């Protein structure tokens, strides 16, 4: 191989496990061919996965950096690359490069804070990495609340992990909701934004949200009404990306490149960007 390091040239990755999460979400475990983690990352960062001949796409790394053995990606089926991945079986080799982007400030701003995670649907994927990181370093943070909603109980990603691990943790409260009544579901029913308001969190917390644009919009509105400052609210963005290193121009909004200046943004930072995301 050429001695010069080239960020666009990926490593080979192997899919060692495929977990079916929901009807359209699967979680893939990826390591290098010699069984190691491809690279270290921080919570909120992303990686470029590719299927040669099909294409390359950016995904958030859903496993926590505290996992030293492998990386995981929860991927929703919604395009060429993801369709192909959903058909892939254990043992399939793909390519991987990264990590990309600015992570959540888990070692700075978040330290000592009560954290409120709010996610909708596949929006839990990028937050899972942060949640598990914070659980691993439990003593650095205050109370942790997780509000998570999906269309139906079947669409809740990582349901088993949530029930068996998160719900069992001390100081971690999980609040699940689904959009409509469903047989066998005795939990909360309703949309995420209104559930957040119902739960009535105090605005001294740091909120971290991820989900579909509508959910983000109304949740932000609700948090504002509850007295949250925009500088205490974080979210992560998704735009089309090709290079991952701020050069190809695709994810440029204002003077920022989502791939390197994001994907994590504080909401007051977002306010300074032109409104086209």
């Amino acid at each position, binding site marked *: 191989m050429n001695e*010069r390091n080239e960020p666009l040239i990926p490593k080979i990755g192997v899919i060692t496990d495929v977990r079916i999460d929901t009807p359209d979400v699967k979680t893939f475990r990826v390591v290098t061919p010699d069984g190691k983690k491809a690279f270290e990352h921080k919570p909120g960062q992303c990686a470029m996965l590719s299927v040669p001949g099909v294409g390359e796409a950016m995904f958030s790394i859903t496993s926590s950096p505290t996992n030293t053995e492998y990386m995981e990606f929860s991927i929703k089926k919604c395009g060429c690359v993801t369709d192909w991945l959903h058909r892939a079986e254990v043992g399939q080799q793909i390519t991987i490069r990264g990590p990309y982007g600015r992570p959540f400030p888990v070692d700075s701003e978040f330290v000592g804070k009560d954290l409120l995670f709010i996610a909708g649907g596949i929006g839990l994927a990028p937050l899972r990495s942060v949640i598990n990181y914070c659980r691993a370093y439990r003593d650095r943070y205050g109370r942790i609340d997780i509000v998570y909603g999906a269309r139906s109980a079947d669409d809740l990603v990582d349901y088993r992990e949530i029930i068996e691990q998160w719900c069992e943790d001390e100081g971690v409260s999980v609040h699940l909701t689904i959009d409509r009544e469903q047989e066998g579901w005795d939990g909360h029913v309703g949309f995420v934004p209104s559930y957040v308001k119902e739960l009535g969190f105090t605005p001294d917390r740091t909120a971290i949200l991820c989900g579909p644009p509508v959910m983000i919009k109304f949740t932000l509105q609700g948090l504002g009404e509850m007295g949250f400052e925009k500088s205490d609210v974080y979210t992560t963005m998704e735009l089309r990306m090709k290079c991952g290193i701020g050069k190809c121009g695709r994810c440029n909004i204002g003077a920022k490149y989502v791939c390197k200046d994001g994907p994590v943004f504080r909401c007051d930072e977002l306010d300074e960007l032109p409104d086209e995301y």
Partner: protein
Amino acid sequence: MKRCPLSRLEDLFAALAESYKLYIPTDGEKGSSFTLWSEGAEISRRLNTARPPKDFFFPQSEDLMGFKTHGQTVELVDLRTEKEDFALFGVRACDAESLNILDRVFLSEPGDSYYASRREKGVIFTLACNKPAETCFCTAFGIDPSRPGGDVSCIECGEYLYLEPLTQKGEAALERLSAVTEDCDSAEAEPQREKIAKTVSRLPLADLSTEGFGEGKTDELFSDERWAELSRCCIGCGSCTFVCPTCQCYDIKDFKNGSGVVRYRCWDSCMYSDFTKMSAGQPRTDQTSRFRQRFMHKLVYFPENNDGVFGCVGCGRCVAKCPVSMNIVKVMRTLGGKKDE
């Protein structure tokens, strides 16, 4: 400073061609272009090439890597090859400056090795513009067409070509031309510089100014209602982007060639509707927003990230080539201020 009689230009090219793959602008029926020099090749009499020298460093299409797949396994093939030393002669001041702009993108960390290796191997001989065109506005971006940059800055004055090395690479190149050049006083080329300055001050776009653009102008300019009017007849093609010496957006695609997969990159344009299209949606839904992005990037976002340096060098290619005469000049005239206002 060195000089070489214009009558010996051919000898100078021959001497350069001994050490470098030499490209000079030559005339074709459809415009001029940088072509590989061969004996007898005449340098173009046109002001500038139809396409900027960008291609030499960031080609329209280039293979990045290859893959071979067998069953479930994937093998990576490094397609990068050692580049040859090459020289470009006759690069204009605007185009030379455009490379500094591309450097800011491609050489900033993490650096792009494909671009970097070409930049290292290429030596740029610039040539002052004795006859600028009406579409020129490099001076709006602080470029002096009588003192072009690059590795060796050249100017034709009287019977001579004057050559001044600006970089170490340029000095090394000039040393190889000792047989055709001689030392001279740097004041000798001054009369021509003054002449150029005078011509430039009378250009129709000489009053164009960057006033009103640059850092901190995002809010004010982004929401300006006149973008709609400016972009009304834009047909959404990529001519402006692809003839632009500073546009650097690219796409990465895979190509199956029968024996494997080649991953290549090619120029792309923010003017295209699919540029930002994702399965989850499209943040720029109309041509106005795409048009705005291109000019906001050059006039506001780029300077914001690059110490106030604008992403345009005023070469005027977009002015000449847009099928419907939309261009950065009209944007600057409409949304900005004029000099001395």
